[in-house]
């Protein structure tokens, strides 16, 4: 556990340059350095932060097998996290040994690869076409970052409440949601896009009912007329919003995630302790068996 039982997380709301790994890596390194000066232990970047989002056929050009020497392209990030004793979560196009591509997020801590989350739920409807290019991941992992249990859900993953359910029941204290969410939909009387409102309601529910910290990091900028909404923020385990960045603007903000408050919330409202996993499994088995 960190000093004072807390971890300082920098939310990096960036505008990735589509297809330009080199430029995006430079930007990441610069932001990591700045975040360290502010005292951050972890810097979180948006979904596909190293490549841009609507990649179409350039997925093929940008894939990196992170377990081979192809990962050398990320050397500057590895070295920076080592030099500064810091961790980073960044989004990239992952290529596996069988040449499948994934919408992945890596956690690199102190020069070491700590975790890779492959996005499970790949939206392929409306303006989205992820399943055309990417293979879905096969689970929601929890990893230990300096004694804090962290799980990464990428954008659409979080829209499936089963993903956060699995993460917290696997032990996650902090759910990181990195995204590339386009701003869309307006409503009279509402001072934000509908999509922003839906996100904030969802994340508040996850934080409150799964008694976790939720760290939302969304990107900004435009790709072919589609603008990403930003509004990165933190929800505490009481469901309240903290440390919010502006909509539509690049920026960084440091959030203090205090595990003592999580401890307090989980004692007062022990929803996770009381969760009946056996019952859920039994019901899920029934559902699956009756549908086949």
């Amino acid at each position, binding site marked *: 556990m960190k000093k004072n039982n807390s971890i300082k997380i920098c939310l990096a709301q960036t*505008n990735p340059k*589509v*297809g330009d790994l080199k430029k995006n890596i430079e930007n990441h390194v610069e932001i990591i350095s700045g975040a360290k000066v502010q005292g951050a232990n972890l810097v979180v970047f948006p979904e596909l932060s190293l490549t841009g989002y*609507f*990649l*179409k*056929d*350039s997925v093929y050009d940008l894939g990196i097998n992170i377990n081979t020497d192809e990962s050398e392209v990320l050397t500057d990030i590895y070295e920076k996290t080592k030099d500064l004793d810091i961790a980073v979560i960044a989004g990239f196009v992952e290529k596996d040994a069988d040449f499948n591509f994934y919408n992945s997020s890596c956690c690199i801590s102190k020069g070491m690869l700590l975790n890779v989350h492959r996005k499970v739920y790949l939206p392929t409807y409306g303006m989205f076409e992820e399943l055309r290019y990417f293979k879905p991941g096969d689970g929601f992992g929890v990893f230990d970052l300096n004694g804090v249990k962290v799980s990464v859900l990428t954008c659409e993953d979080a829209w499936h409440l089963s993903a956060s359910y699995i993460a917290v029941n696997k032990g996650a204290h902090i759910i990181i949601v990195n995204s590339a969410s386009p*701003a869309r*939909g*307006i*409503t*009279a*009387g*509402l*001072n*934000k*896009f509908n999509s922003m409102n839906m996100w904030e309601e969802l994340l508040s529910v996850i934080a409150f009912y799964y008694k976790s910290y939720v760290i939302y990091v969304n990107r900004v*900028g*435009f*790709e*072919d*007329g589609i*603008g990403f909404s930003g509004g990165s923020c933190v929800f505490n385990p009481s469901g309240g919003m903290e440390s919010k960045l502006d*909509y*539509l603007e690049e920026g960084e903000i440091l959030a203090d995630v205090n595990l003592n408050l999580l401890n307090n919330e989980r004692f007062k409202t022990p929803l996770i302790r009381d969760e009946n996993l056996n019952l859920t499994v039994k019901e899920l088995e029934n559902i699956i068996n009756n549908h086949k």
Partner: protein
Amino acid sequence: MKHKIQLPKIDEYNFPLIYKHLSNFIKIEVLKAGVNSVVLGLSGGIDSAAACFLAVNALGKNNVTALIMPYKSSSESSMEDALKVVNMLGISRYIVDISKQINEYFKNETAANDNIGIKVRKGNKMARERMSILYDYSYKLNSLVLGTSNKSELLLGYGTLFGDMASALNPIGDIYKTQIYQLAEHLGIPKSIITKPPSADLWEGQSDETELGFTYETADGIMYLLIDKMYKPEVVASLGYDEVLVNEIYDKIKKSQYKRRMPLIAKISERTINIDFRYLRDWA
């Protein structure tokens, strides 16, 4: 209408973010192209005025140039209103009268001037002449052409292919005409521009709504349900809208789909432009 699902209003609550978003769009997409300015045709109407106000907010008044391109039949108030926008925003402008080249082209036509065929052909020719001038100035001023077509006319196909529909980027193409009026109020566009009846001004006394046979307000309410909400025409009719009108509008949208797409390319190779050669325009 009794039902609740209606075209959302641009109001004082959502305007600030829409304003910022559209300004960011212009700024980011223009800079990506390696230039920092735009040129647009200013007709004196509400759409081009709105696009012009957004562009000035995004790029600054020194990076927006208006072209006013009257034809002899254009109404005088159009010119006055266009100049009102120019003066309010303090932008540079050029006035290019297109009467000569249009008249020269049509001089041997024998059809009477009020013949609908010739009226439409002249209207299309004027729209394409203006496009051609805009693209010439785009090169001359190292600027992108800013589009000024709204969502209503794009969906209805009420525009000239490769004419007023042509542009490099369009900040208002996802905003219905009804919402353009609301946007205009918040942008501070002069009242005389907001209150006059919508007109393509291609011939004297032309009115969009007379020509279309319905008002934008009615059509927009229907198109919002058909397009944005993806309701089938019969569902829209079941919500209390005139079934004949709903079908007529849906037909117009379908029949004008070609205007909203790039030309078809016959596929011969293994990888064909815009079919399976797929990259963003922002690729480079």
